[in-house]
C-alpha cells in the first residue's frame, strides 16, 4: 500500500499569502501541506527584537564586507536580520546591461513578513479601474466592492492601526488606534495642508490596542522600534504569530521547511496539476508531494519562476501560459525621489526615543484623482512616506556624519540638531507594460540546486520619470511650507525592485487570452492551480500591496474551498 499522502492542497510559501492560505483552507477543513524553501525559525535564536547594537562587536553594522560580498541585493538586511534573507551567491538572477533589478528575497518560515514595512492601505476603484479612468492598460476583473469585505476580514484578523480619514482614493478600514504623530510629523502635516495636500498617520499592521481574542498570545506594541529584526511579541503581523499558529491549531496543516520547489507536476491523463517536485535545501534529496490543489504563494517572481519552470510538452511555455502573458507586466513601485531637511524650530529640545514608533506620516496620492487634479505630463500618481525626529545609533550616525566641525563644538552641534531631521520619499505607481517581464534565463544560469533562474527585463517609462520630476517639486514645496530648512531635494529614482513591491507577471483578468488567472486567482488553464501572491496584480497602484494580497488570498480561498467541496477542482 502506498505510504504517500495526497493532500487536499499544497501551498508553496509560508509568507503573507502562503500563511494566510494555510489558515483559510485549514479552517475550511482541508488537509494542507505548506512547502517553505527556507529554514525553520527558532524564535529565541532568530528574532532579535530586543538586541541592542552594543551587544554586537560590530555594533549593528555586521562583519566587514558581509553585505557587498554575500548579500549584495538584500537591501534591507541588517546584522540582526541577515539570516532572514537569501545569500545572493546561491540565488542568482540575471539582467541585461544597463537594466539593473534589485531583488530582495527572504527564504525562511514566514518569509518577508518577518521584516516587512507593515504599511497597510486599501486600493480603491481609482486603482482597480484605472484603465477606465485614463485609458492605459487593463482594468482589474474585480472592483472595490468585490474585495471590501475581505479587506475588512484581513484588517480585523491581522490588526491595522490607523485613522478614518475619509479619502475616497484611500478607503478607510476597521482600525486600531493610530500611532500618534511626533512633533516634526505634525509640522509636516501642517505644511502639506497649507499647499492643499493631506497628511495622515501611516496605517500599519501593528497592535496599538490590546489583542482581540483570536490574536492568540500576541501582545500590544511597546515601541521598541526593531520591527525589521523580527518581532518576538507578535505586535506586528507576521506569519509566525498570526496565520501559521491558527492553521497549526486546526491539526490539518503540515509544514515542511527547507523544501525548494523545482516545478509543479501534472497528471498527463487528466491534464490537472497533481503535485510538486522539490529538493531538500540541505540534503539535496529529491521528492514529489502529491496534492489535489496547488496554491502558489511563493512571492511574485518565485511563483512565476515555478510556473515557467513547469513547462512540458503539454505546456511548452510554462504552466498556465496559454495566453503567453506569464512573466509579463512586471512592476515595482519607485522611490528615491523626495526632499529632506531640518526643523530648526525643534533644535535643542530634549531627545525622546521617537524611533520606537516605526510609523510616520503619509501624504496620500493627490495627482490624477479627479478632473481638477489631472496632469498633462503623466497618468496615475504617487504618495510620500515621511518621517521626522531622533533616531537610535547606528541610524544616528548618518546625521552626525553630515554635521561639520570637530571636538566639543561638533558634539554640541550634533546634540542640538539631533531632534530636527525630517525627510519625505516617494512611493509611486509604475505602469504595467508587457515589455517589462521576467523569463527563465535563456543562457542556462541555475541556482545552487540546479534550478533555472529568472532574467528580468525592466525599465521605467517616461510616465514614471515625469512623475518623479513632479514628486521632487511637490515634496520640496511641502517641506518649505512646513517651515523646514531644506537641504536636499530630488534624488535619483530607485532601481526597479528596490522598493520590494514587485507585482504582476501572472496577472488576473476577464479574458484568458490576455491574463493568466481569473478573478478568483485561479489559473485559466488548470482549474486546480491558484496563484495568490502579488503576481496576480493587474496594476501596482501606489499603495503598499500586502493588505491587498491578504484580502485577495482570503477571497480566493473562499472560492477554492467552495469549489473543492463541490468537486469542481
Amino acid at each position: 500500500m502506498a505510504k504517500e499522502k495526497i493532500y487536499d492542497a499544497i501551498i508553496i510559501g509560508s509568507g503573507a499569502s502562503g500563511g494566510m492560505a494555510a489558515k483559510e483552507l485549514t479552517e475550511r477543513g482541508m488537509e494542507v501541506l505548506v512547502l517553505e524553501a527556507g529554514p525553520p525559525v527558532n524564535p529565541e535564536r532568530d528574532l532579535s527584537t530586543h538586541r541592542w547594537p552594543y551587544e554586537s562587536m560590530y555594533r549593528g553594522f555586521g562583519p566587514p564586507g558581509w553585505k557587498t560580498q554575500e548579500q549584495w541585493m538584500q537591501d534591507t538586511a541588517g546584522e540582526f536580520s541577515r539570516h532572514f534573507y537569501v545569500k545572493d551567491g546561491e540565488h542568482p538572477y540575471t539582467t541585461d546591461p544597463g537594466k539593473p533589478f534589485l531583488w530582495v528575497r527572504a527564504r525562511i518560515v514566514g518569509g518577508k513578513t518577518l521584516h516587512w514595512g507593515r504599511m497597510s492601505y486599501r486600493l480603491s476603484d481609482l486603482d482597480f479601474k484605472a484603465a477606465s479612468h485614463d485609458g492605459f492598460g487593463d482594468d482589474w476583473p474585480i472592483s472595490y466592492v468585490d474585495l471590501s469585505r475581505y479587506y475588512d476580514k484581513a484588517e480585523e484578523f491581522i490588526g491595522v492601526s490607523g485613522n478614518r480619514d475619509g479619502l475616497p482614493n484611500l478607503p478607510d478600514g476597521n482600525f486600531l488606534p493610530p500611532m500618534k504623530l511626533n512633533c516634526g510629523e505634525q509640522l509636516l502635516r501642517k505644511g502639506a495642508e497649507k499647499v492643499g495636500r493631506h497628511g495622515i498617520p501611516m496605517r500599519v499592521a501593528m497592535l496599538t490596542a490590546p489583542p482581540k481574542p483570536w490574536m492568540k498570545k500576541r501582545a500590544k506594541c511597546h515601541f521598541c522600534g526593531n520591527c525589521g529584526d523580527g518581532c518576538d511579541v507578535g505586535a506586528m503581523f507576521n506569519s509566525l504569530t498570526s496565520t501559521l499558529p491558527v492553521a497549526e491549531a486546526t491539526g490539518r496543516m503540515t509544514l515542511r521547511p527547507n523544501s525548494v520547489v523545482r516545478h509543479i507536476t501534472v497528471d498527463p491523463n487528466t491534464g490537472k496539476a497533481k503535485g510538486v517536485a522539490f529538493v531538500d535545501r540541505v540534503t539535496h534529496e529529491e521528492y514529489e508531494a502529491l496534492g489535489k490543489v496547488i496554491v502558489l504563494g511563493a512571492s511574485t517572481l518565485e511563483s512565476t519562476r515555478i510556473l515557467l519552470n513547469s513547462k512540458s510538452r503539454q505546456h511548452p511555455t510554462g504552466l498556465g501560459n496559454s495566453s503567453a502573458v506569464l512573466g509579463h507586466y512586471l512592476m515595482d513601485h519607485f522611490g528615491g525621489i523626495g526632499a529632506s531637511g531640518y526643523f530648526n524650530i525643534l533644535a535643542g529640545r530634549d531627545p525622546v526615543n521617537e524611533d520606537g514608533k516605526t510609523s510616520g506620516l503619509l501624504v496620500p496620492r493627490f495627482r490624477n484623482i479627479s478632473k481638477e487634479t489631472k496632469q498633462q505630463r503623466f497618468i496615475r500618481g504617487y504618495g510620500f512616506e515621511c518621517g521626522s525626529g531622533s533616531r537610535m545609533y547606528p541610524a544616528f550616525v548618518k546625521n552626525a556624519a553630515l554635521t561639520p566641525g570637530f571636538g566639543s563644538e561638533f558634539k554640541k552641534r550634533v546634540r542640538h540638531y539631533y531632534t530636527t531631521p525630517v525627510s519625505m520619499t516617494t512611493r509611486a505607481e509604475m505602469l504595467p507594460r508587457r515589455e517589462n517581464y521576467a523569463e527563465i534565463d535563456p543562457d542556462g544560469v541555475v541556482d545552487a540546486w540546479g534550478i533555472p533562474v529568472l532574467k528580468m527585463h525592466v525599465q521605467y517609462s517616461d510616465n514614471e520619470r515625469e512623475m518623479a520630476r513632479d514628486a521632487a517639486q511637490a515634496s520640496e514645496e511641502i517641506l518649505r511650507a512646513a517651515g523646514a530648512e531644506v537641504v536636499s531635494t530630488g534624488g535619483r529614482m530607485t532601481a526597479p525592485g528596490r522598493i520590494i513591491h514587485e507585482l504582476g507577471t501572472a496577472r488576473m483578468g476577464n479574458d484568458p487570452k490576455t491574463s493568466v488567472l481569473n478573478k478568483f486567482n485561479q489559473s485559466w488553464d488548470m482549474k486546480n492551480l491558484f496563484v495568490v501572491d502579488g503576481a496576480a496584480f493587474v496594476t501596482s497602484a501606489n499603495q503598499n500591496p500586502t493588505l491587498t494580497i491578504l484580502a485577495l488570498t482570503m477571497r480566493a480561498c473562499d472560492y477554492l474551498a467552495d469549489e473543492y467541496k463541490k468537486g469542481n477542482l
Partner: protein
Amino acid sequence: MLFRQSEKRASDEAFVKLPTKPTRLHSIATLSRGNAFRGSFEAGPANYQFTYTPAKASIAGGRLHLQGRVIVTDARGQARARENVKATLLTTQGGIGTAPTRPGNPASGAPANNLPEIESTGVSSFTGVLYLELEPLRGGALGVAADLGRVQLNVRFAPLDDAERALQAAYSSVVDSTYGKSNASVAANAVNELNKLLAAH
C-alpha cells in the same frame, strides 16, 4: 504564541521519493580578488577552497572566453591544480551601487533632459556579477568526490582597491561591448584592456 517549526516536522514518508542525482556541483560562488576568482564549495560532507585565475581573455561567438588556472584545496590543505581551463561567460547581473570609473557605457542611452536619473543605469551602470560556465572538469583529478561536468562559476565584484575596481570596470566594458548589436572593434579594445590588466598581476 509563536509558531515553532522545530517541534513540527513532516515525515518524508508522506512524499514520493524521486531519484536523487549523484553529487553534482551546480555552481561555485566566488569573489573577484586580485585578478582571481576565489570561493569555496561543499561536495557531500567535504569543504573545498576554489580559485580560478584567468590568464587570457578573448571573444568568440559574441561571448567572453577566459582561460586560466583552477586550484582546488581540500580541508587538509592539499591543493590540486589544472591549467588552461576555459570559462565561457553565460550572462551577467547588473550592479547596483557605486560604479567603477570607466568611459561612458555604450549599452544604455543618456537620460532625457531634465528628467530624474535612475540609479545604476546609463553611464553609472556596471556589471555586478559574472556567470561563467567552466569547461567540464574531472572531479577525481581535483580530489573532489562530485560531478564537475557542468559547473557554473558565479563571480561577484566587490572591489577593495583601485586595481580590483579597474578590473571590474574592464569586465563591465567587455560585457557592454558584446551586448546586443556589438561593435567588433569596441569589443576588441575592451578585451585588450582586460588582457593588459590580467597580465599585470
